[in-house]
């Protein structure tokens, strides 16, 4: 364990030193006592001489026997208490570690240019602000640790550790995760596909609709997230266009969801589309090391065949900003990044849940191809399709095939065995089917929050 700004527990350091020093000093004292009697014997009367010599011999013989007996007793009693403490420490350390392992709790830094993953954040003493970067049961304390300033700090998940002020061990910026399970979902897509529209519309759906329906509570991680959300969602709800995302290294949008006394902290990472032009831009996106699911946003108008079909209408509708970035390049950059910089091999399948989302489906007559009306028609024709969602999934795949993107579809299907297609529109409160994307991902990532 690294040095901490705290007092080591007596049983992990000073106890041994005190025992050793006590034994050494006691032995030295006995020797001094015997020597003093022998010294006194040199200058006394003969009967006193005999008495002093006898006393000296008595200290050496019987004193040593009793010194050994008392030392043994001291060692036995102390080690008995040490053993109890070590057993208690082992149980608590294991319980704390097991709880974090079982609930998949770790610290993911949401800050731009960091995104580091750590076991726990650095906790700060509320009195002196000293940094404790290994605040768990150990040699500095089992249930509580005494900071160098004297303040007692909790060391486990069940006695208040998560309530302490925390910061990222890598970048030093504040962490407000409260030891909730992080659920990390990067949004992938070319420029102007509608990632930012999607993220805030999705958050709206989770906050305003799904939380009421499914009995979980929602709150933003901090005021920054809430103010960003409020600003963007009011822009969306008023029908205006959100400003283009420019940060290649995104700041996460964070909110807590709590159900059955278990908290999860969502991280949506919305990078600028330009980041996906090259896998080198994604090297710093360390959240790909621990993501739980992916959302690929596809602008239907970024597909050449589709663009050609709607070209004239797009020219007349300036409020529909279509993406001109090659769709396959986004896919390739993302996959290359995962293979080169993280632990995915070329032949590996990524089994995490992936949502492929066609955006802007409310434009023109796209709903008649990949929307609900088309899905209802399909279900009538094909009774094997049991739900609108399944039908839309089928229609979206077919849409790619019909528009010369079958090779991309095959790439998606071979790399992500756990994927599903959606068609949505992101308009804040008037969004279409965004709640389905949320339900699909959340149900597969966190079984505690079933939607």
């Amino acid at each position, binding site marked *: 364990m690294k040095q901490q700004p705290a*007092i*080591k527990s*007596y049983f992990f350091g*000073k106890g041994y030193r*005190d025992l050793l*020093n*006590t*034994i*050494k*000093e*006691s032995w030295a*004292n*006995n020797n001094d*006592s015997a020597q003093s009697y022998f010294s006194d014997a040199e200058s006394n009367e003969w009967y006193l001489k005999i008495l002093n010599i*006898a*006393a000296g*011999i*008595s*200290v*050496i*013989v*019987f*004193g*040593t*026997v*009793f*010194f050994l007996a*008392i*030392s043994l007793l*001291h060692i036995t009693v102390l080690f008995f208490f040490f053993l109890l403490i070590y057993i208690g420490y082992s149980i608590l350390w294991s319980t704390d570690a097991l709880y974090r392992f079982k609930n998949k709790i770790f610290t993911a830094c949401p800050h731009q240019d960091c995104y580091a993953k750590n076991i726990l954040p650095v906790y700060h003493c509320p009195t*002196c602000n000293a940094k404790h970067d290994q605040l768990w049961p150990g040699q500095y304390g089992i249930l509580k640790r*005494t*900071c*160098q*300033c*004297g303040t007692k700090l909790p060391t486990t998940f069940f006695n208040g550790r998560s309530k302490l002020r925390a910061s990222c061990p890598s970048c030093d910026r504040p962490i407000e995760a409260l030891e909730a399970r992080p659920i990390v979902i990067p949004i992938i897509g070319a420029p102007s596909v509608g990632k930012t529209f999607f993220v805030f519309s999705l958050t709206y759906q989770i906050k305003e609709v799904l939380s009421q329906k499914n009995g979980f509570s929602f709150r933003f991680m901090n005021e920054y997230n809430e103010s960003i959300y409020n600003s963007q969602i009011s822009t969306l709800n008023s029908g205006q266009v959100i400003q283009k995302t420019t940060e290649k290294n995104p700041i996460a949008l964070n909110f807590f969801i709590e159900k059955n006394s278990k908290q999860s902290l969502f991280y949506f990472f919305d990078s600028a589309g330009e980041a996906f032009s090259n896998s080198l831009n994604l090297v710093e996106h360390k959240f790909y090391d621990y993501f739980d699911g992916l959302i690929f946003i596809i602008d239907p108008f970024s597909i050449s065949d589709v663009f050609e079909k709607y070209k004239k209408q797009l020219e007349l509708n300036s409020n529909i900003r279509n993406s001109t970035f090659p769709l396959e390049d986004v896919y390739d950059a993302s996959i290359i990044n995962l293979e080169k910089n993280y632990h995915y091999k070329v032949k590996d399948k990524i089994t995490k849940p992936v949502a492929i989302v066609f955006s802007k489906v409310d434009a023109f007559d796209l709903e008649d191809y990949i929307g609900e009306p088309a899905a209802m028609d399909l279900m009538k024709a094909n009774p094997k399709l049991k739900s609108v969602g399944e039908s839309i999934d089928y229609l979206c795949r077919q849409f790619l095939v019909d528009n010369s993107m079958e090779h991309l579809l095959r790439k998606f299907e071979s790399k992500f065995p756990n994927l599903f297609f959606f068609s949505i529109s992101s308009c804040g409160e008037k969004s279409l089917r965004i709640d389905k994307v949320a339900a699909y991902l959340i149900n597969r990532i966190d079984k505690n929050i079933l939607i």
Partner: protein
Amino acid sequence: MSDSDGSALGAIIGFILIAIAVVVVVVAAVILFGTAGALWGSSIAVNNYRKAFANNVSMEKPSIR
């Protein structure tokens, strides 16, 4: 039996009794001095251990910042 035989027997018995008495006194003295020595040595050892314990065993206090 003559008078001289009776005196010799008495002397032998007396000698044996005195020898037994001496042995008893010596053994008693050894036990007494041994016990005294043991008590003395042990009390010195216990006292020394007590002093060493008091000097060395204490909980560490936090530094005041």
